[in-house]
């Protein structure tokens, strides 16, 4: 009976069960009275009065979401870096580079055994320089690929360069400012932060602060500049604060960073 009643309230009784319930109630007047009263009480329960949460809930959620997205992005980049190292082994350019290195290596060993007085260090430096140049060429060529994930790989590959030349830094800056994909631009911003000792990289990050429109990227750049202790970023951050179009959580981040940089 209890289950039949619950199904009746939920309007899920089958015709057979309806018949069963009706028979039960017809044969028991007391039960019928109890059933009718309970049914009418249930139907009289006022509908739920829904209330709206206030704006703090939205603010808290979207800030948390941005933070998590940042963490997820870093995790993906780490994975891609690892994957790139593996896929690199199979790339034709690496095979060419490996050939060059092997030839240079043989040459070096030959000279080394033939004449111990030759300048070994100079040769080693030359090999390293060749490798660096090959890596830079590969990175620059990969940045032109159509696939965004390939371009992210290219950007991440810059982490393997000890001291990239100006051409590489300029390519990263161009990617930061013009790439159509937000994830590629974010990766470029983070790669540039890796070369924070270079003035050209810091200048680009400061300048991009006022041109980027995506809140995620704005937050990433603000974070980078604050961590670099770049006091010249205070003015563009203050401009962001004054701009009515700036998202609230970006403003909050900018406010924190301005405070940190002016302390």
């Amino acid at each position, binding site marked *: 009976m*209890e289950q039949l009643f619950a199904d009746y*309230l939920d309007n899920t009784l089958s015709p057979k069960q309806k018949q069963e319930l009706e028979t039960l109630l017809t044969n028991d007047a007391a039960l019928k009275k109890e059933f009718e009263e309970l049914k009418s009480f249930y139907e009289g329960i006022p509908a739920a009065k829904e209330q709206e*949460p206030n704006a703090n809930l939205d603010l808290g959620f979207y800030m948390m979401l941005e933070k998590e997205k940042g963490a997820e992005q870093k995790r993906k980049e780490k994975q891609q870096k690892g994957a790139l190292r593996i896929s690199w082994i199979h790339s034709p350019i690496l095979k060419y580079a490996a050939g060059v290195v092997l030839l240079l290596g043989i040459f070096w060993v030959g000279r080394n055994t033939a004449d111990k007085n030759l300048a070994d260090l100079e040769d080693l430096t030359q090999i390293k320089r060749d490798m660096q140049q090959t890596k830079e060429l590969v990175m620059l060529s990969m940045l032109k690929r159509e696939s965004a994930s390939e371009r992210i790989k290219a950007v991440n590959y810059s982490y393997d360069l000890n001291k990239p030349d100006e051409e590489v830094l300029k390519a990263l800056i161009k990617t930061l400012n013009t790439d159509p994909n937000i994830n590629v631009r974010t990766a470029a911003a983070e790669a540039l932060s890796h070369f924070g000792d270079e003035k050209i990289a810091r200048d680009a990050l400061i300048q991009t602060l006022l041109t980027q429109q995506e809140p995620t990227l704005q937050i990433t750049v603000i974070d980078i500049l604050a961590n670099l202790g770049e006091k010249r970023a205070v003015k563009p951050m203050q401009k962001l604060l004054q701009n009515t179009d700036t998202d609230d959580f970006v403003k909050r981040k900018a406010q924190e960073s301005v405070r940190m940089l002016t302390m």
Partner: protein
Amino acid sequence: MTDEAAMQYVALGDLDKAAILYERYKRPLYNFYLRFGLERDSSQDLTQQVFYRLIHYRNTFREGYEFRTWIYRIARNIYHDFLKEHSHNHKDLHENIEVAEEENYDDEQHLLIQKALAKLAPEYQEVLRMSRYDELKYEEIADILNISVSLVKVRVHRGLKQLKEEYLKLN
């Protein structure tokens, strides 16, 4: 996009889809906590925690799960954690709940029903709130509470009888 499809995307790392689920469920979950008699601030905090867990435990969402059941199970666990945290101060919590109910609902009859509900054993309160207000099906409630559907139905019937008695006493 269904809730399940959005959650599958979130589980695969497309966190922007969590915003779709947030917009769909923030209000029902906030009211779920209010109806348990929590104050507005606490209800917002617990709602926020639900979405925090949704993102952090996104990998535990499997294909074939029903999202609504899954999120309400999270919401219920958070509510029970909250009760445990405040159990050392149970009397104060109970008083707070009464004050919160009056603050949250200005309709007199609704307030009386809420007061009567608060007097029931927790297992009856849960099923009645979920079926009547959250409009969850008995199967979904059974899944959330990890009990049989038959037991849910029995609790609905007995809970309703007791609710009526408590309501008449207050009225």
